[in-house]
C-alpha cells in the first residue's frame, strides 16, 4: 500500500468528520502544488493566492457535505482548482462589459496594472516559463500536471475528465509545440 495514499484516505475520513486538524494537514500538504497549478493559469500572484485559498474552502465544504465516496483527494483538489480558474475567467469576462466611466477608468487602471504585473512577471520568468505561458491552456495544463506536479496519466485523466489515451495524445502534442517554441526562442 502507498503510504501517501493511505495517509490521504485517513485524512479524507477525518475531513468528513469535520476535523480541523485534518484540514490543516491537507492544507500543508497541498497548498504549494495547488498554488503552482493555479499560478500558471492566471496572470498574477495575487489572483493565484486568492484562488488557492478558495480551493481549500470549497474542498472543505464539499467533503463535509457530500455522501459520495472520494477515491482520490489530490485529483479532487486539482479538479476544484481548475473549475475555480474557469469561473474566475468567466467572472472577469463579464466585468469587461461594464460601461460606466468611472468604472471604465478603474478598469483601464486595472488593465494597466494587469499589464504591468504581466511585464513584471515576464521579467521574473525564465525562458521555459514564458514558453509555457504561450501554450494554449489545454497543453499548458497537461505539461504542468505531468512534469511539475508529477501526476500519473491516470490522475491527470481524472482531473481533466478525459480518457488516458486522450491525455497521452495531448501530452505528446503539447511537448511537440513546446519543442517548436523552444527552437524559435533559441533562434
Amino acid at each position, binding site marked *: *500500500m502507498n503510504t501517501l*495514499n*493511505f495517509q490521504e*484516505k*485517513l485524512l479524507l*475520513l*477525518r475531513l468528513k*468528520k*469535520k*476535523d*480541523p486538524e*485534518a*484540514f*490543516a494537514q491537507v*492544507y*500543508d500538504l497541498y*497548498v*504549494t502544488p495547488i*498554488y*503552482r497549478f493555479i*499560478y*500558471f493559469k492566471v496572470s498574477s*500572484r495575487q489572483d*493565484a*493566492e486568492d484562488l*488557492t*485559498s478558495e480551493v*481549500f*474552502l470549497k474542498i*472543505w465544504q464539499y467533503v*463535509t457535505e457530500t455522501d459520495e*465516496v472520494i*477515491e482520490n483527494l489530490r485529483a479532487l483538489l486539482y479538479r476544484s482548482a481548475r473549475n475555480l480558474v474557469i469561473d474566475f475567467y468567466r467572472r472577469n469576462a463579464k466585468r469587461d462589459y461594464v460601461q460606466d466611466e468611472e468604472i471604465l477608468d478603474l478598469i483601464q487602471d486595472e488593465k494597466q496594472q494587469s499589464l504591468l504585473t504581466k511585464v513584471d512577471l515576464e521579467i521574473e520568468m*525564465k*525562458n*521555459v*516559463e514564458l514558453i*509555457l505561458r504561450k501554450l494554449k491552456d489545454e497543453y499548458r495544463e497537461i*505539461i504542468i500536471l505531468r*512534469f*511539475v*506536479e*508529477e501526476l500519473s496519466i491516470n490522475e491527470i485523466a481524472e482531473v481533466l475528465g478525459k480518457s488516458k489515451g486522450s491525455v497521452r495524445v495531448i501530452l505528446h502534442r503539447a*511537448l511537440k509545440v*513546446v*519543442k517548436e517554441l*523552444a*527552437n524559435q526562442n533559441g533562434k
Partner: protein
Amino acid sequence: MENKIIKEIKNLRTEIKPRSEWVSLSRDLLLKQIKQESYEPVKIGASSYLQIFVQFFRQSMLEPAVVMLLMMVTFLGSSLGINAAFYSLPGEPLYKVKLALEQTHAAMVSNETEQVNLKIEFAQKRMEELDKIVSATDLPVEQQKAKIKEAVAELQNNVLAVNNHLVKISKSITQSKVNDKDKADTVKMAVAVTSKTEELVKSLDQKLENLPAVDELEVKDLVAGAVKSVKDVNLSAQQLVEDVNQPQENALEIPDGSVKGVDNNDSVSDKSQNTDTIIKIDVKDTETEVINTSTDSIKLD
C-alpha cells in the same frame, strides 16, 4: 533537446512557490472560518479503518499484478496449508483439516471398491499416527493418552466405514448386481483388505503391549476395541472373497422334510440361542458337478 526542456520544466517545481507569509496567513484565516462551523468529535474506530482497507482492496483489485499475486499467494498458502495438515497429528490444530481433506477425497470417489481401498489407507494412516504418538518421549502422559484416544477413535471410524462398504458390496454380489470384471476387482480388493487388516491387527497388538506409561484401562480397552473391529473387517473381507467365488445358491428341501447339509438335531439351528448361522447347502448344478460343499456356523457371544 526534449529531455533538456522537460528537465527545465521539472525545475519549476522548486522555483515556483507561494509566499511563506501568505501561506501561514491564509492557513490561519481558513482555520478560523471552518472552526466557526460546529463539528462532531472525531472517532476513528475499527469500522473506519475497515472502510479504508475495503477501498484500498477494491482499488487494488483492478491492478492485474495484484490479482496475479493474490492468486499465487492463495495457491501457495493452500498448498502449504495442505502440506502442513498432511503431517499433523491428533490434538494439533490442522488435524481436523487433514480429516476434512480425507473426507473430501472419499466423497469424490463413487466406486464402492475404491472407497474400501481408500478407507483402508486412511486406517493405515491412523496407525502411523498412533506409532508416532506412542513413540513420542517428550509428551506429558495425559496429553499422550488424549492423542492415543483420538487416533484410535478415528481408526475405529475408518475401519467401521470399510466394513459398511464390504457389507454393501457383499449384498450387491448376492443380488447378482455386479458383472464379472467388478467381481474380479472386488476379489482383489478383498484380498488386499484381508492382508492389510492382518497387519493392522498385529500392529495394534504390539501397541497394546508397548503402552507402559499409558496403562489406564480405558485406553487399553479402546485399543482392544479397535483390534476387534479390524478383525471383524478381516473376516468380512474373507467372507466377501468366498461370496464372489461361490455360484448363486438355493436352499433345496429334501422329501423327508429336512434340509440337506444341516444337522436337524443340532442346537445350532435353535433360534432361541443368540447365534448367527450361515448355512450353505449342496446344490446340484445341472451343467457342472457340485463345486463346494460347506456348512459354516459362526457363534457370536
